[in-house]
């Protein structure tokens, strides 16, 4: 836990690293900040076209009883994925990129990964806010919204834990970066984001149950429950998701602390 308080002591650095990332990201581009919306919108449009129009994927009817927009259904899962993916890959890349700096100045090596998480979190907040506004306009709002802060916190803890652990192994074996990229691709399609879980359940209930064990699938499910289905997650999920997230964070942080003790010389 001392490492958490150390991170807190360096919150000013995390704040400034975040600012550096945000300020430098869209410098010299005409559209600037709009790119952070255009990019996910483009991905959303592509998937919506391919799977919604070409393959005619049918989402379940939303909690308001009539909305059947595949694009919105997809978006309710996609922002979760973007946040998870951005945090993990960002943790790996930001530690690697901090090598020169860590060799010159002492600071907790987890700071860049945390700063990256904050930037990705901001993006996720914007995306989910847009989702909320659209769904609210369609009359699809429920009390389940109170779960949203818990969901954000759980995804953050889980993704950061996974990202920190992978980032430190990546310093010793750069293969990790490439392997994780491939793994992320597999995981994306193994998670019911572009298709509803019911599609899998029709084929094999065992496969559906296995998929449900993935924390990412659970995060997506929570988001769909909050914004689309207006259902409460079942008890198992309500207990399991926070417990697994906290465990993932603690284990990831412990691995990171143990392995990063003298990491500057390896970078």
């Amino acid at each position: 836990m001392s490492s958490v308080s150390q991170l807190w002591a360096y919150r000013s650095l995390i704040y400034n690293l975040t600012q550096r990332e945000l300020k430098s990201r869209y410098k010299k581009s005409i559209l600037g900040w709009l790119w952070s919306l255009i990019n996910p919108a483009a991905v959303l449009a592509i998937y919506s076209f391919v799977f919604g129009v070409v393959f005619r994927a049918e989402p379940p009817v939303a909690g308001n009883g009539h909305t059947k927009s595949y694009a919105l259904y997809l978006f309710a899962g996609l922002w979760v994925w973007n946040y998870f993916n951005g945090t993990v890959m960002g943790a790996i890349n930001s530690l690697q990129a901090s090598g020169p700096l860590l060799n010159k100045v002492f600071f907790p090596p987890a700071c860049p990964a945390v700063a990256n998480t904050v930037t990705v979190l901001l993006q996720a907040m914007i995306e989910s806010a847009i989702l909320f506004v659209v769904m609210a306009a369609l009359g699809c709002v429920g009390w389940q919204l109170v779960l949203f802060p818990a969901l954000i916190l759980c995804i953050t803890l889980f993704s950061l834990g996974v990202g920190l652990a992978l980032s430190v192994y990546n310093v010793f074996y750069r293969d990790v970066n490439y392997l994780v990229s491939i793994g992320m691709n597999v995981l994306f399609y193994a998670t019911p984001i572009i298709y509803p879980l019911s599609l899998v359940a029709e084929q094999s209930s065992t496969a559906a149950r296995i998929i449900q064990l993935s924390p990412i699938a659970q995060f997506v499910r929570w988001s769909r429950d909050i914004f689309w289905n207006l259902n409460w997650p079942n008890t198992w999920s309500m207990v399991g998701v926070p417990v697994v997230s906290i465990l993932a964070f603690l284990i990831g942080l412990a691995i990171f602390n143990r392995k990063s003790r003298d990491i500057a010389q390896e970078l």
Partner: protein
Amino acid sequence: MIAIDVQDVSKKFRLYTDKPGSVKELFTKFGRPKYEDFWAVRDVSMQIKEGTVHGLVGHNGCGKSSLLRMMAGIHTPTTGQIVTAGRISALLELGAGFHPELTGRENIYLNASILGLSRTQTDELLDRIVEFAGLQAFIDSPVKHYSSGMFVRLGFAVAVHVDPQILLVDEVIAVGDEEFQRRCLDHLRTLKAEGVTIVLVTHAMGIVQGMCDTATWMDHGRVMAEGDPLRVVSEYLHGVNDKEAERDLANEIVSFHPTTAVAPGHTSLRVEKLVLQDPDGEHVPFGISGAPLDIRVDWSTVGEFAEPRLVMHLLSSAGLHLATTYTPDGSPELLGEGRWSALCRFDSLPLAPGAYKIQVTATDVRTNVIFHKSDEYDLTVRAEGHSIEGVFALPAQWIHGLRRGESA
């Protein structure tokens, strides 16, 4: 009170013979170490008192930078430990962490937070930092448009203004121009007066002798001498001299191979070495204040040359340009290819005892540079009997005992 307590510290680095590992090698070469151990620092203990300036000297690769990094907390000692008291600011590289796209002001905040300062603390220091760096006009431009000098000034300004209690400085002062170097040194003196503990890694023996309270000479990771800076430096220089003597360079002040510069037209001129001689042409290891000295410049040419003009710069050990002397204007007659010498003769060497550097360049008759700066050669001047104070004996004459009349 002890500010930095280095307790029996050793540091082992792994020199990877085939870096870095991939997962395949993890399986195929499993269990076979593919690195060699290298001890950068070996059994070093030292105590640096609060408010003192400590110099670390030694040739490149002797472990002084590794030690400094361990003091800064960047590297962890393999064995032993380092106990420090107070906030540490390390100047291992000026402007480390500057982001080229961000403005000077944004980078000040970024860099200050890397050094552990909060936003409000930085707010208070901002004006002083900007003023010290002399960048008022450019502070809101991205630092990628800065000249390298501006970049360095900003980096130094941030690092010394974060109110450190311990300041670790690694060679960084050597990068700026002369005025900047002087300001850095002045500021370090101010910090010292304020009670900041400073550890300096440097090759400028003049700084060690002039500024440090204590010094350590390290060689191959071990402490060779420590204590009084004058004694440590002289032992270090003796050590260097002995080594050079072993390499059969005993009486020459050549320390490096000069760089070659190719002049236009496939001709080139190369300053090969500098030799100190007494008036009889005998090699001497050093000059003596007020005594005659010849500095012989050996140079060679490829192709034909109009007789070049040799330019000799005299620098202080800290790199400050003190004086320049030229050979007379080159005569138009051509010199053939070959090896040449020139003598720069002093009937009475007007330099105070100390360490100096000499650099030689060459220009042609039209003052085009045909040989860029040679490496810096060390010139040691010692006292014998009557000594010179300051740096130079001024070439002035006193006419005294003049009685002032009522109205001349």
